[in-house]
């Protein structure tokens, strides 16, 4: 209910039509991004494409509702932590391959613990986990790039001297 009130009498952002449609569509976009990330080892797509789709859902919300609405949902420190978590998970998977199987990025789950069959969802060992880590990393960092550009251009005066000099 609180969100519908925000849609109705929000001053920031675009018109009511855009806000309503984007509030319907946002979950579909997020679901599609998660689908692309999870089935990245079977179909076209993968971590990068799915991460871009996940970030684009938040960019859609930013365009429709304004920057403050998005920052309430996914604030800048939280997105930064998600970014670091994705990179950390990817490095952790790589180093676990080194520790458990002897070579960097070795697919240790596939050989020992998780045989699986070809072309099934749980089949490729560490590759889906790496895809999830990359999706987290790319989505959070792309969201951060656009959010930081938006914050940077908030009070933008061309040619104004910085730090009050001259």
């Amino acid at each position: 209910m609180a969100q519908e009130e925000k849609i109705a009498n929000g001053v920031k952002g675009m018109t009511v039509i855009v806000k309503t449609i984007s509030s319907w569509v946002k979950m579909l976009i997020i679901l599609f991004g998660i689908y692309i990330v999870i089935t990245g080892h079977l179909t076209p797509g993968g971590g990068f494409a799915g991460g871009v789709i996940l970030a684009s859902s938040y960019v859609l919300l930013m365009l429709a509702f304004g920057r403050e609405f998005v920052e309430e949902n996914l604030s800048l420190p939280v997105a930064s932590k998600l970014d670091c978590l994705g990179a950390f998970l990817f490095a952790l998977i790589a180093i676990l391959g080194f520790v458990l199987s002897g070579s960097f990025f070795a697919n240790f789950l596939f050989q020992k613990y998780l045989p699986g069959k070809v072309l099934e969802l749980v089949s490729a060992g560490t590759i889906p986990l790496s895809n999830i880590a990359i999706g987290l990393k790319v989505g959070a960092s792309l969201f951060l790039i656009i959010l930081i550009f938006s914050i940077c251009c908030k009070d933008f005066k061309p040619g104004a001297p910085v730090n009050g000099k001259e």
Partner: protein
Amino acid sequence: MLYALCFLLFMIGLYCAVVKKNMVKITIGILIMEYAVNLFLIMLGYRLGGRAPIVGKEDLAGAGGQVSDLFVSRCVDPLPQALVLTAIVISLGSLALMISICIRTYEKYGTFDITKIRRLRG
């Protein structure tokens, strides 16, 4: 012939990055150069009448999950595509860096012209 067109596109980007004085145009020139290199790499892996290197159920032969010889003989090379995907990610990062440099410069000097940015102000 097609590779020469790639080279031509690269030269257009190089001309734009070297000759123009606007920072945004230099950014666009660098991006055109990156896209020319990506196009060249994709065309290296192209095969006439080939198909996308995505393994479906009908492309498997034998019980061990081996890919059939027909699929290997017909699909295009997936390695340049993976390489180009990585290059696109890197060009995205460098694009964000270049645009942020452009924004900060315009905020500080009020111009995009690189010949007018002469003084280094602290």
